[in-house]
């Protein structure tokens, strides 16, 4: 791990991301989401150069390390939104568990039906888990963290894009239910979207759902192992 690559990788990633964020704030098009844009730029730049890619990945240890504390930090919004869980403990848990089970079940069932590679199916079972937890769970399932992260980002963006319209179509108009649904599928991008669409109640539902999904699937992976 060289100091130069650490500096290049960290500073390069941070400045690119912050610039992408400013762009996204001015042009809020989903395909310009800072995470997507920065990753695609990085992939285009480093993809054809496996040597530089390896050095970049080793150099970005600081950012990757921070994903650990970020998991612990999830406790804070969960705690702040505890009213949601306290008001309907079983019902909230049941809704989130049902959403998670059907979503994972769809991936497993449809994947097998279509003859998708088992490696890809297994990676996509983690697609609705918040990024830091999904990356931590990937080795336990024997899948590549990069592949898992593709699924996580794609699901987050897709759910965020179509979720509000889908829920409106289905007649789900209560902010709590909408927030729970968005958080169940779109992890950290869910509460952000729910807050923007449905106010604090939606955001709180999203934050609770995101944490519950991470806990449920962590427990499931631990049991399966």
């Amino acid at each position: 791990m060289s100091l130069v690559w650490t500096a290049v990788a960290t500073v390069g990633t941070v400045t690119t991301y912050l610039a992408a964020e400013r762009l996204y704030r001015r042009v809020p098009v989903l395909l310009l989401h800072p995470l997507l844009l920065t990753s695609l730029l990085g992939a285009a730049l480093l993809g054809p150069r496996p040597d530089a890619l390896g050095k970049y990945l080793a150099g970005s240890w600081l950012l990757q390390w921070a994903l650990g504390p970020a998991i612990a930090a999830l406790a804070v919004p969960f705690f702040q939104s505890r009213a949601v869980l306290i008001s309907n403990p079983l019902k909230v848990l049941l809704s989130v568990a049902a959403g998670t089970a059907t979503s994972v079940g769809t991936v497993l069932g449809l994947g097998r039906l279509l003859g998708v590679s088992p490696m890809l199916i297994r990676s996509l079972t983690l697609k609705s888990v918040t990024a830091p937890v999904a990356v931590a769970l990937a080795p336990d399932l024997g899948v590549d963290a990069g592949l898992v992260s593709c699924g996580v980002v794609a699901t987050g963006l897709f759910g965020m894009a179509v979720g509000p319209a889908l829920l409106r179509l289905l007649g789900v108009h209560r902010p709590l239910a909408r927030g729970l649904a968005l958080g169940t599928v779109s992890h950290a991008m869910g509460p952000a979207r729910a807050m923007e669409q449905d106010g604090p109640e939606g955001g709180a539902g999203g934050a609770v759902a995101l944490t519950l999904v991470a806990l449920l699937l962590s427990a499931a992976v631990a049991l399966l192992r």
Partner: protein
Amino acid sequence: MLTVLGLLVARLLPLASVQRGAGFLLRYLGLLFVPVCIGAVRQLPLLRSQGWAFAGLVIAGALVGQAAAGLLAQALCRKPAVGPAPEGF
């Protein structure tokens, strides 16, 4: 995460002391995730050959999961007394 949550619930850890740090980490969660995503280019051959399956499973899983969670929550849950919006997102 469970440790921090336990300490918060037990009031051993005042919320104010971790709020700023946690808010900062979660605010830039996307940034922390960039290197892992860039690392995914190493899986490009698999994604290229199974791209349609990848997209199909992501779309189907997301639609079904959102519909199930939303409909069930709408049918079951009472309105909670929610305080201020959760921070960091």
